[in-house]
């Protein structure tokens, strides 16, 4: 009973981290960094509820995805065509998310703080012998594998990596640096958007002013941790999800918390992530043109 809830809990906690990280990995491979993932998660979680309440859960997921893609597009245009600072644009998205959703809750439902998503418009779960499982768990895994394939086994993937490593050479070879990077920006936004929709209309069935609660930043850490490999982003998401669940499960035990204070138990997911990043993975090499706008000579 406890074990199955631990496993299912870990799988669900993995989804937003892995999905968001997967998109960002592709974008960073092309040399474009978006630290506004947290904001995208939050805004998309909000718009997904609006979409789902109007046209059902599938529409909700789509609205979330499109919201993320749109924000990614704006970020991309700022960073690529206007050569704006990617960090500042990303921070802007996070700030926008915090304000927009707090205001949107009151504006849309007249309730400050939170809105409960009606059962009828939530993404239906797959029932398993161990409990309900969200289909988005499978979607997240498939997306990570497909993204890996796209990056490593296709022509577009080659262009993506070329643009991230040496945009001038890619440009000389006839690759449109701007277009490829813009694709990365939109792709990263779309996946974060879908992850945001998962938070609100699937996993947690609610929208609050801070529903993302730092998951966008954990996803950014996972991007580094994975060494820009989407398959390792699955591992990263699972490790974080598992230790996150384990910490809370362990915190309920009086016998255990007498020996180890619960505050230490709840540090586990972060400590383990740090250890893995620092020790096991070793040095991660980022694309050479990461975070730099491309200017044709």
């Amino acid at each position, binding site marked *: *009973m*406890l*074990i*199955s*809830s*631990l496993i*299912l*809990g870990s799988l669900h*906690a993995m989804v937003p981290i892995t999905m968001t990280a997967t998109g960002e990995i592709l974008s960073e491979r092309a040399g474009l960094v978006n630290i506004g993932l947290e904001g995208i998660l939050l805004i998309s979680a909000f718009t997904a509820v609006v979409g789902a309440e109007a046209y059902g859960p599938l529409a909700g997921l789509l609205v979330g995805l499109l919201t993320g893609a749109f924000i990614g597009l704006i970020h991309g245009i700022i960073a690529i065509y206007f050569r704006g600072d990617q960090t500042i644009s990303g921070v802007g998205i996070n700030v926008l998310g915090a304000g927009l959703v707090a*205001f949107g*809750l*009151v504006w849309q*439902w*007249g*309730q*400050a*703080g*939170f809105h*409960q998503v009606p059962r009828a418009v939530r993404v239906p779960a797959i*029932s398993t012998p161990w*409990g*309900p499982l969200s289909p988005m768990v499978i979607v997240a895994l498939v997306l990570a594998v497909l993204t890996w394939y796209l990056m490593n086994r296709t022509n577009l993937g080659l262009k993506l990596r070329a643009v991230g490593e040496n945009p001038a050479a890619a440009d000389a070879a006839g690759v449109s640096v701007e277009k490829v990077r813009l694709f990365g920006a939109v792709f990263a936004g779309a996946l974060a958007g879908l992850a945001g929709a998962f*938070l609100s209309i699937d*996993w*947690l*069935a*609610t929208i*609050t*002013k*801070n*529903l993302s*609660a*730092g998951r966008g930043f954990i996803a950014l850490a996972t991007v580094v941790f994975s060494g820009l490999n989407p398959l390792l982003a699955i591992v990263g998401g699972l490790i974080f999800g598992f230790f*996150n*669940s384990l910490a*809370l*499960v362990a*915190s*309920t035990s*009086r016998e255990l918390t007498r020996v180890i204070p*619960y*505050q230490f138990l*709840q540090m586990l997911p972060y400590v383990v992530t740090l250890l893995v990043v620092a020790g096991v993975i070793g040095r991660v090499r980022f694309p050479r043109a990461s975070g730099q706008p491309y200017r044709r000579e």
Partner: protein
Amino acid sequence: MRRSSLMVAVLLLALLAGSLSAAAQGSLAIVFDVGGRGDLSFNDMGALGGDRAQRELGVTVREVESATTADFLPNLRALARTRQYDLIAGIGFLLQDAMAQVAAEFPNQKFAIMDGLVEGLPNVMSVSFADHEGSALMGALAATTALELGADTVGIVLGIEIPILLRFEIGYRAGVKWAVDRWNEMHGTNESVKVLHVYTGAFDDPARGKTAAEAMLGQGAVVIYQVAGATGLGVFEAVEEFARAQGKEVGPPFAIGVDSAQDYIAPGFIPVSMMKRIDTGVFTAISRALDGTFEGGATLLTLAEGGVSASTLEDNIEMMNAAIEAGTLTEAERDELLAGIQRAREAVPASAWEALYTLDHLIRTGEFVVPQALDAETAEFYREILQ
């Protein structure tokens, strides 16, 4: 002849009514937290307190909404400047800084803050609520429900470990202990009920609440009390999902709400909530401002004074009607929600309700004193002795 006597009677009545309202002159301004009316929470309860003051004291009430937290200061200041209100009440601790500032600027204006604390100003009454007493009631209901269902575990999911929350936890444990002792005495048994508690470290992460509640459900908890703000929304979701996965439309397991009547959030699975009576707080503050007993500083409204209570069906109806008035709820939605709440209430064993109301009575009369813990050491002490 008959008509003229009727007219005289009407005139007399009108005069009487006029003199009555003149005798009980008074005016109250309520400044709401962001979101304003129709939140099915503190704001609506504050408005209900204003309604009661209007009805029972003949006070005129002015309600002021705040679009953002930045509006608190100008709103409070504008009201104070008119000098026509006997009391300005602020709903919720978020107003506390703005109120401290404005109260210092207008020392002759009386203020009251609900569920917050403004220190060092004689013209501000800070109303807090005896949440440990209310939490004990929840513990009594939870433990008796567990015993009736042949279970031995209940839970409480909390936010960040701050002194106020320790008070909730220990109050809840005290209620559980009381109910178990009573059960054993009545049945001649030697049962025990284990209380699982988790401080999730967050008030704004429903995912943590959901995971913590799942861990408790996995260990056989049948009732989980949430004291964790938005984190607690995850507790409701976990409980409902767990029950529905077994094909149930109604608990057990059950969740218990907090602060306001949250019974509507997961209809069928939240039979009761521990309510902080913001309405009583507003009413008490304006009453005291009018009859000259107003005093600045902290005021704790106890269970006996109506400061906390277990939510009733009537509380839910009253609050939903307030939301309908504010336009955020329709009558059809209300009736559907109420049906769900009613189902949850009926699914709780009668003896659990009886335990709750018995303890309510004992706390009111002072026969049972709920222990308070406001630091970690005291809390640990009570955790040990309340087993």
